[in-house]
């Protein structure tokens, strides 16, 4: 963190993390006001994984994630106003109001979607990577999922297929220690839900502190390079924590306040701000990032709330490739 380039990058990563944090805090507030329809799963506390991982990708690389996917879409460059409008059910939503919070997608930015069935997108990630492999492209696919997801059959099938076909895909398990309300330790017979399973697919166990954006960049960056150079898939376990409940509706009373407090000390934003300071970035510059982000989020919120709802007849488009929803004559 010594050169100007490094500092610019570090500040950029910081801005992304702060943006995502503030964006999700805003979503939380809007949810509490009853303005978000359906569930909203926030990743507050886990930002370093999404931001660090996205920062090692190139345009043309692909990523894919879950219902807890706001961060992953934004980190790839999905327009925040269109994401917010999707959550609020306004015109201009990134999925035209048809997806909502759990299905944020921005193919234009290489984010192939958020999937709400546990594990379902891991095989899909294999397919994305397979297409690149067949064409001889050097694109890489990054696939995000949670600790609880390592227990579903699709995880097993996807990891094995990726390994056997040597696909250019990096699986990133965000181990936030909980499925919905149940600690992951209650439902596995190993210590680490992902890393301790890697050997079953002939893969090395890769672990990283998911609250340290630089560490994430290093470990996932190396895995991405390996995949890009024909070295096949990796499975990375990033240890992290969600500050809030499973979804915005969950008060998360199943966790002790001490546990939460302990993890908040390891907040990835705090830690990154400290590192920025240590590397000579001024408090003022760091403040400025936060102020800019806050203003931007305020602006898109005001605009989104002023936008109308989509018109009802748009429900009937986007079904088939001809744009219609006609299934019979």
């Amino acid at each position, binding site marked *: 963190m010594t050169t100007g380039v490094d500092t610019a990058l570090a500040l950029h990563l910081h801005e992304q993390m702060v943006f995502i944090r503030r964006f999700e805090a805003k979503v939380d507030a809007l949810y509490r006001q009853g303005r978000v*329809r*359906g*569930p909203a799963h926030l990743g507050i506390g886990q930002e370093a994984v999404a931001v660090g991982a996205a920062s090692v990708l190139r345009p043309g690389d692909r990523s894919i994630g879950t219902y807890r996917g706001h961060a992953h879409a934004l980190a790839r460059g999905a327009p925040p106003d269109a994401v917010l409008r999707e959550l609020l*059910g*306004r015109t201009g*939503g990134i999925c035209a*109001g*048809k*997806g*909502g*919070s*759990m*299905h944020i997608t921005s193919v234009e930015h290489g984010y192939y979607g958020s*999937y*709400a*069935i*546990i*594990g*379902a997108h891991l095989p899909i990630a294999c397919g994305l990577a397979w297409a690149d492999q067949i064409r001889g492209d050097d694109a890489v696919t990054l696939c995000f999922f949670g600790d*609880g*997801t390592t*227990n*579903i*059959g*699709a995880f097993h099938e996807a990891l094995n297929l990726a390994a056997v076909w040597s696909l250019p895909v990096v699986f990133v398990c965000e181990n936030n220690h909980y*499925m*919905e*309300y*149940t600690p992951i330790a*209650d*439902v*596995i017979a190993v210590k680490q839900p992902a890393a301790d399973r890697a050997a079953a697919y002939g893969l090395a166990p890769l672990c990283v502190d998911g609250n340290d954006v630089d560490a994430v960049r290093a470990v996932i960056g190396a895995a991405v390079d390996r995949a890009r150079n024909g070295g096949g898939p990796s499975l990375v376990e990033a240890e992290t924590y969600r500050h809030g409940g499973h979804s915005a509706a969950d008060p998360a009373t*199943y966790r002790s306040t001490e546990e939460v407090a302990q993890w908040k000390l390891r907040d990835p934003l705090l830690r990154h701000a400290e590192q920025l300071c240590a590397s000579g970035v001024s408090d003022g510059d760091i403040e400025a990032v936060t102020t800019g982000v806050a203003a931007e989020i305020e602006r898109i919120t005001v605009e989104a709330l002023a936008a109308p*709802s*989509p*018109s*009802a*007849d*748009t*429900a*009937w488009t986007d*079904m088939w490739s001809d744009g219609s*929803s006609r*299934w019979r004559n």
Partner: protein
Amino acid sequence: MPDLTYRQAVSAGLAQEMARDERVVLLGEDIASGGVFKTTVGLRDRFGPARVRNTPISETAIAGAAMGAAMAGLRPVAEIMFSDFYGVCWDQVAVEMAKARYMTGGQFGLPLVVRGANGGGLGFGAQHSQAVENWALCVPGLKIVSPATPADVVGLLAAAVRDDDPVLVFEHKALYGTKGPVPDGEHVLPLGSAAVLREGDDVTLVALSLTVGLCLAAADRLAAAGVSATVIDLRCLVPLDAATVLASVRRTGHAVIVEENPGQLGWGAGIAAILAEEAFIDLDGPVVRVSGGNIPLPVAAPLEAEVSVSTDRVVAAVSRLLDVPVPAVVSLA
């Protein structure tokens, strides 16, 4: 008769059966702490962790463990949190549970229940809103229950637990917050007995689960316009009380079937086909279906409303069928 919410009725029904028969055991994700929909509240504390077991996120293992336990003499109740998740364990349900008794020549039974939250209306989107009872109806060997009221939740759930065949209970997530009286003491209903909730002469409305309320509301509005409607809550798709529907339609001469699911294929088509074959001679007009759009459920409110069934659409369909003017919405004031 205490008033319970529909979600409380789930816990109450389970508690009633667990107290009665210690072979009744529960398994599912996060159920020990009361469950994501708060439908298993208090059961772990009352019946202990051995009988109320949290599982990994492994629906195939959940369904399979329920099946194996039933083969070995327990009476398990498995929760599939959202019925959409039957997709990841459909083999266990449709291809194992439904067929095991038959293909072994009856060497064992499967006294088990699988239950969970079904249907749309809350903005949960395409992957958390499906009307999955229709998949099950394609597969002989599964009993299918879908209660519309808290009392029926208790009574039908109890019947499902006591039944010696696999029973799928589809609770409706949009009904969990609704309230209603539940009989004091033990409450059990028979499976396969439809409820005639209202008797009328002009048309028979056939409903299930969420659409029962829509039909009752529609019948109110139609009454104001001089149309008298019978409203039938099927309660179960298997066993199906076809006789009650047939008898009513033979009397009224008109049937409107109101199903939440996409019309492409759903239980409403099954009922329509039965009527077209067995009540043809008594029909005075087409068998009309009011169904959900043939589309995955969108999230934005006006979009979800656009593709969903509603009281308005029921009223309009009946009015068209009987060729009467559409009655206006009665003001609540």
